[in-house]
């Protein structure tokens, strides 16, 4: 699923485009614990989180995650947005909670990242 289609589905706003046009999201990881995210084969995945810290972008970079979706309309520090731009990681925000987002994406055909 293209990022703009995901944004349309979950009423999201794309803050940092990254490589959005070329990425096709097939898997999702929903977590606020970064060590947990690192356990998954999350290459090219979408990370759904409510954690608005720069380390979310670091984790995405280390784990080759393509895009981060911030839920609950959480405000993001400038540092976080700048780092996402620098690392070419797409960043999106939605006012919806994680459960609704995950439910809609699951129904939309996306599947969970698998543990390595």
């Amino acid at each position, binding site marked *: 699923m293209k990022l703009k289609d995901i944004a349309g589905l979950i009423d999201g706003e794309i803050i940092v485009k990254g490589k959005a046009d070329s990425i096709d999201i097939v898997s999702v990881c929903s977590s606020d614990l970064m060590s947990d995210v690192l356990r998954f084969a999350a290459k090219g995945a979408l990370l759904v989180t409510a954690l608005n*810290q720069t380390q979310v972008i670091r984790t995405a970079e280390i784990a080759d995650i393509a895009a981060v979706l911030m839920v609950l309309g959480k405000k993001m520090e400038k540092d976080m947005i700048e780092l996402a731009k620098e690392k070419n990681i797409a960043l999106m925000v939605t006012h919806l909670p994680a459960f609704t987002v995950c439910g809609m994406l699951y129904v939309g055909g996306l599947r969970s990242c698998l543990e390595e």
Partner: protein
Amino acid sequence: MNVEGCFQLMGGDFTNAGAASSELKSTLSKLGVSQDIIRRASIAAFEAEMNIIIHAVAGTMHYVVNNGEIRIILTDMGPGIEDIELAMQEGYSTAPDWVREMGWGAGMGLPNIKKNADRFKIDSVVGEGTTLEIVIYMRKD
């Protein structure tokens, strides 16, 4: 191939936390190391780097790439680990609540490092600090 580097790490510096591992990752990419090896090395380095940011006053990350392996050595001035066996258990953590609220400290760090390393050694003295040595082979043989 013989490439090495060293980074200074400051305890509590969550803004720059992960920058050293990020740089290690990009260095390994430039060296043409395979994707799977880069992933394992950078995840192990990142977890170890975060441990220092969370628990220690300061520390260093030193890496050497040669003889077909990546060796990452992290040394810190921190509280030390009282019971290493316990610290290796998934879910065990001594991190305070505020660290948990930052998305860390759920007791997965050391197990994640071990999982991604080919060789892994911890030396720790309570009240002085901890040294981690992580080795990842670049070839399967």
